[in-house]
């Protein structure tokens, strides 16, 4: 007898997403689609100035407008809510002013909500907003971070001692000596513009407080339902059990939808006050004015190399400008903290000094967005590495091959203190060289240059933080779960359900969980229904952020599946009068572990355990539900690594950059679904390229956002984006059974750095070098000295 192929290996297969079928049929269930009985609509009157004192608010006329239910001010709403403060204990001496729902005495950014109007329709609420009179005495806004730190500077918010939110220094003992004896030092001054998530579905919330039972149900487009359950319970004085948060389909999130916003808190407060459902959906201008912005770093950096071209040290000073307060509950210091720790990550570099200053200003809050800190650290490091290559007359790819931590040198601890279990930089670089035909491209580049065509090749190795434990937030006192939970059950008909705390925003979370659970139980993923995004039906857990869905959520599902598998096998052994070790699950059945013969279908197990438990031997546990929680242990993070390359052509007359092609070699450990992994990488790359070339929230000197629409804020379009070639190296983490690490942020981490190096490589004959994002045509022409 020949062995049949293993039909139960689902991990590693390109399973298609069941939930995609709903979207393709127009049956998405977005929060923006939700209509509840007696639901009313919210709109906000926002501060027109970046900094000022509120003198008077007159809502009289607005209250009389057609359809208006009520007009609410700080005096109505703020007493319902305990203020929130965006600091964490492990960021020593961090300061941030307390926040409450509506501005009471001062406004601190242009767009801050001052008055909330509730009406029968959003249009009527907006009409009434026009009738509210808010009198504000303008004050000079704090817009520039460096100026904000000057002695005696005005503070962005009242009650602050200074505009410094947080500062820290990280250094090795010998960093100064390393620079003193360097054969070559390159330096740079970088500026990374503000950009924002632009999720296609804006932020949306429907809060539904039922005064008869005291139950609050919040339907919200978010990545983190449990975090919001905790926030709403604590800040509105409810028991946790009285708060249910439901995140149905979410139209993009990318980190933006896991922060606390004034409008969501206002919507909950208004529902508590009115005892009926209140809906708030941001329009696109409101999104630009109130969604978190990302980045906004000014970095001075230098890199030392020895006579052999080996990188010995880096020194970095990062000034990050975060808006008028630190975001809650994750803070606005986490990104800078990561920037200074990720510097030089792929390299053997031994010495380092990183300084971080986190500074307040009168703009929208910045906070965590896809690939937190990574694009900054990667771009600074890799632009300097290219600078070294140029200074030494060496090939940039060869220089990197010589400098990365060798694949056989793990475990390794970086100069900044990060611990790496096992990475594969050398393998990835070798793979990239072959995939992109590096030597051929270089030869072509040289030929084309002679004809006045300026192409550039940019290389950017990277590391990425995934599978974080409690070190990120929990140790700092934030009530953000580092663990996840899953409940797996076998139905009476032999189908499987998995309720799990990780969430889906289209990346395929539910699909990979179905694959993992299905593999443990020998059930095809199509018959595993995965339920996410509801605090009443799933176990508590951290959900989806920082690339933890696959690595931590997946491991949770695996362990839950194995627990249920053991329960099923115990029942089967009792029924069959057999030993558990002689049985196995496959093809939706219990089979003989040795011969593969089918002994009993899972449907039969379900039937007996559910309808005829009386026929089981006395003492048999008939449970067909298993619950399991899992928190990462071992290394503090499961670092991934990879390398990206960008090939561009720069028109030196117009400054336009054409992206010709992009390559990524990525090592995310064990690949659960190659189709979904590749699409996470592609989507991430394009977000990275957007920030590098197009996206920027522009402010004038009065602190006014000047491009708050999708006509003026440039999002990458299909016609501008290159095809992206992806290769893989697989180094599973040994910290888990599953071996998976995260992948969602890898694309964003290094795409911008690769593009910046490619543009600068194209401009090499002109001795022009850009260190500012986005690399707009105007900035390229300026670097070329044309304007």
């Amino acid at each position, binding site marked *: 007898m020949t062995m049949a192929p293993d039909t139960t290996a689902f991990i590693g297969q390109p399973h298609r997403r069941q939930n995609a079928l709903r979207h*393709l049929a127009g049956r998405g269930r977005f929060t923006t689609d939700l209509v509840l009985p007696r639901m009313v609509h919210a709109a906000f009157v926002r501060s027109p100035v970046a900094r000022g004192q509120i003198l008077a608010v007159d809502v009289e006329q607005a209250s009389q407008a057609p359809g208006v239910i009520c007009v609410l001010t700080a005096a109505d709403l703020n007493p319902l809510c305990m203020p929130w403060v965006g600091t964490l204990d492990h960021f020593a001496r961090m300061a941030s002013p307390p926040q409450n729902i509506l501005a009471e005495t001062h406004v601190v950014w242009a767009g801050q909500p001052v008055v909330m109007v509730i009406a029968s329709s959003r249009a009527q609420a907006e009409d009434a907003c026009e009738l509210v009179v808010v009198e504000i005495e303008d004050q000079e806004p704090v817009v520039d971070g460096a100026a904000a730190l000057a002695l005696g500077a005005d503070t962005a918010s009242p009650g602050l001692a200074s505009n410094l939110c947080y500062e820290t220094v990280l250094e090795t003992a010998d960093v100064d000596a390393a620079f003193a004896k360097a054969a070559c030092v390159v330096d740079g001054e970088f500026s990374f513009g503000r950009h924002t998530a632009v999720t296609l579905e804006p932020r949306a919330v429907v809060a539904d407080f039922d005064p008869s039972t005291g139950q609050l149900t919040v339907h919200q487009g978010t990545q983190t339902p449990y975090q919001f359950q905790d926030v709403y319970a604590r800040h509105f004085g409810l028991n946790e059990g009285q708060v249910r948060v439901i995140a149905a389909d979410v139209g993009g999130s990318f980190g933006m939808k896991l922060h606390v916003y004034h409008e969501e808190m206002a919507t909950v407060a208004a529902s508590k006050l009115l005892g009926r459902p209140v809906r708030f959906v941001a329009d696109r201008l409101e999104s630009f004015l109130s969604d978190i912005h990302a980045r906004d770093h000014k970095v001075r950096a230098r890199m030392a190399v020895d006579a052999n071209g080996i990188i010995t040290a880096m020194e970095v000073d990062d000034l990050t400008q975060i808006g008028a307060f630190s975001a809650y509950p994750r803070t606005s210091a986490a990104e800078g903290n990561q920037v200074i720790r990720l510097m030089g990550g792929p390299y053997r570099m031994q010495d380092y000094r990183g300084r971080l200053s986190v500074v307040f200003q009168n703009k929208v809050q910045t906070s965590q967005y896809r690939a937190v800190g990574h694009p900054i650290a990667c771009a600074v490091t890799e632009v300097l590495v290219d600078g070294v290559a140029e200074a030494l007359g060496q090939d940039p790819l060869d220089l990197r091959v010589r400098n990365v931590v060798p694949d056989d040198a793990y475990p390794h601890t970086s100069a900044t203190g990060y611990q790496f279990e096992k990475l594969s930089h050398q393998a990835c670089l070798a793979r990239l060289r072959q995939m992109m035909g590096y030597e051929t491209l270089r030869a072509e580049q040289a030929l084309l240059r002679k004809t006045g065509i300026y192409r550039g090749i940019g290389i950017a190795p990277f590391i990425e933080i995934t599978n974080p434990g409690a070190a990120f937030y929990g140790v700092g006192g934030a009530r953000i779960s580092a663990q996840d939970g899953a409940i797996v059950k076998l139905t009476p008909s032999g189908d499987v359900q998995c309720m799990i705390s990780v969430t889906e925003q289209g990346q395929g979370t539910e699909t990979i969980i179905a694959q993992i659970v299905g593999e443990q139980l020998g059930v095809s993923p199509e018959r595993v229904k995965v339920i996410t995004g509801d605090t009443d039906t799933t176990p508590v857990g951290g959900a989806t952020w920082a690339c933890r869905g696959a690595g931590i959520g997946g491991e949770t599902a695996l362990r839950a599946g194995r627990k249920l598998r053991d329960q099923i096998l115990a029942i089967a052994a009792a029924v069959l009068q057999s030993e558990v070790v002689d049985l196995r699950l496959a093809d939706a059945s219990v089979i003989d572990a040795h011969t593969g013969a089918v002994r009993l279908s899972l449907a039969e197990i379900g039937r007996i355990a559910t309808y005829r438990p009386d026929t089981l031997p006395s003492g048999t546990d008939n449970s067909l539900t298993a619950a399991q929680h899992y928190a990462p242990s071992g290394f503090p993070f499961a670092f991934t690594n990879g390398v990206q390359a960008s090939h561009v052509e720069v028109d030196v007359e117009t400054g336009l950059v054409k992206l010709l092609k992009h390559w990524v070699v990525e090592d995310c450990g064990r690949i659960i679904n190659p189709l979904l992994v590749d699409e996470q990488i592609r989507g991430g790359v394009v977000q990275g390229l957007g920030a590098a070339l197009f996206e920027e929230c522009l402010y004038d000197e009065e602190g006014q956002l000047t491009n708050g629409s999708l006509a003026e804020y440039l999002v990458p379009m*299909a016609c501008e984006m290159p095809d992206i070639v992806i290769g893989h190296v697989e180094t599973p983490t040994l910290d888990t059974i599953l071996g998976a690490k995260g992948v969602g942020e890898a694309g964003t981490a290094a795409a911008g750095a690769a593009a910046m190096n490619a543009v600068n490589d194209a401009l090499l004959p002109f001795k022009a070098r850009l260190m500012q994002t986005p690399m707009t045509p105007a900035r390229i022409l300026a670097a070329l000295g044309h304007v």
Partner: protein
Amino acid sequence: MEQDLTKEITVTVNGETVRQRVEPRLSLADWLRDRLGLTATHLGCEMGACGACLVMLNGRPAHACLTLAVQVDGEMVETLEGLRDRGVIADLQAAFHERNALQCGFCTSGMLATAHALLVDNPHPDRSEIRDALSGNYCRCTGYEAIVDAIASTAAARTIDQGTSG
């Protein structure tokens, strides 16, 4: 007493005749979503930039956010729900599923509308023509390549089908 400015419109929506009184300022998108429950039509920018609200108006893609409901009086409107029910984009939907040409799904209705119209106008588009055609459709999740692939493979399959049947 407020003046009644509403106007009665009669519109063929997904093959069904709908008669309603609407305010002159009501957009087609809000009418479809809020009054008819056709929530496949999404709103991403409300200024005709992102393409999430594209519907077929008399067989051509139109921004439902820039069109007023009163403007479509007497016209034919088809949303993704209608295209799906008629079966005319079944192969496109299957190709999007197979290639994972969507993530969060919010742009998908508009993408399918654009793709449907493109393949009617130009049954054999090359990749750059597909990318150009998608320039009015923003997608934040996929990076576009999978969408381009799905449309290209649908075009290729339709060509083969026509070749064998013709």
